[in-house]
């Protein structure tokens, strides 16, 4: 895989993390966020579509 792939993936994850913090939704962990689209809001373990 190219360096660009990792670079763009890092940027994507960073963006998600920052935007999640800004809107008060914290990711459980980056790996679960990536693979299962799980988020944590007010300590509830949710799917994105739950909101």
């Amino acid at each position: 895989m190219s360096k660009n792939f990792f670079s763009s993936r890092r940027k994507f994850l960073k963006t998600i993390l920052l935007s999640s913090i800004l809107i008060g939704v914290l990711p459980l962990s980056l790996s679960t966020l990536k693979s299962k689209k799980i988020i944590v809001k007010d300590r509830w373990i949710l799917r994105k579509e739950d909101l």
Partner: protein
Amino acid sequence: MDFKKGRPLIFYDINNSLDLSKDNQVYDTCIIGAGAAGITLALDLEKKGFKVALCEAGNFEYSEISQDSYKGKIAADPYLPLDTARLRFLGGSTNHWAGWCRPFESIDFNRGYMGEHFRWPIAYADIFAYRDRACEILEIPNKFEANDRNMTKDIKKIDFQFSPPVRFGSKYKNILAKSDNIKVFLNANLVGLEGTKGNITSAKFMNYKNKSIFIKSKKFIFSMGGIENSRFLLWFSRLYGNKFFKTSTPIGEYWMEHPHFTIGRAIVNKTVLKYPFYATTQIAQKDLNILGCGLRVEPLEHSGAKKLFNDLMCSAPSISRKLINPDLVCGVKFRSAWEQAPEKNNKILLSEEKDNFDVNRPILFWKKNNIDRTTLVDSINRFNDWILMKNLGRIKLEDWVLNNEEYPEKDELAGYHHMGGTRMHNSEEYGVVDKNCKVYGSKNLYMAGSSIFTTGGYNNPTLPIIQLTLRLADHLVSITN
């Protein structure tokens, strides 16, 4: 007198029987500690014709003077006061146990891949062979695996069996008293040993009036509980050095409990609540390199459930609406009790403070480690995967779980399950007793009870204690024959 049967019930209360010092009988076995293990062993050996001295430090009922010797100190993680976590009278801690029963699983005896210190010296089949009889003693059906069901590859629903619960003291009091082959000594506090190198010939006991007696026997078994077995080996190491057993083994070390904590709350479907007990499968434990973990859901009362649902409505209105259907039940408390890794640093030590019999009181150093935390978090994740995949509800975790913070101090903390300390292992580096429960370096001293557990599994220890005790009885018979 037991007038119904027309025969006196005989116990030897050494507080009141002053002529006992003249008892010159040499017993086949002297069992020290009359709890679940001690009583089971005495009754089983009696059937094989053994002459047994069963020595209990307390009396028939709870007394402060006896219980005092159970006081000790706690170091490291918060734990329950040592004198409330166990009982010191006939029947031992079965006088307050809740009756939960579930056996070890086959993976417990196949964990060598996690390190040499996880390796039992016996196979699952060796303990499984005694399950029928152990279940009979505990008055439960021997039905476990058949009731388990995989919900996913990683999570299974499990069942416990519940003993009435059997109180060994009251259940077996009359049988013990009527036995021709068992002599029960009450108020008998172990204070010393006598004998030659590697061979104990008599044990010294003191009553509560400062009088002592000696009991002679060919074999001695300590069945005093998961703290006392270690405490007395440590104390005798100080008194006698290597005279009766090797002191270089990890006496008191690799002590284990089952951490018990509330890990969150949840709104769940009826399907989840139908089976309140879950656990990680053996496949998941191997895949994730974690230990066994039990998960429980307990219904909340109506007001608590309503509050929880409103909370979810605010945080996730979309799913809240979807969850309202005929199968939705209510809110539940989400709890866990799980296996702790055997760790050399978790141990029983001797304090410099002494009890009324001049025996050093114990210090319990108990700390949960990284594997313990990973076991919990990975198990919660796998359970949550199932809940989300099947859309069976939503879980709200406690802060400390989510943020990897310290464990809360005000919670159940543990299960009163004292395991390890005189553990079984093929190597003297990792074990205090061999596969036959004999203490390394001794010709005739054995350990019984959960202190011999090499690992603790995630289930309640009483059923395996009885299984392993019956196995010990068979071994003692086989070497005598």
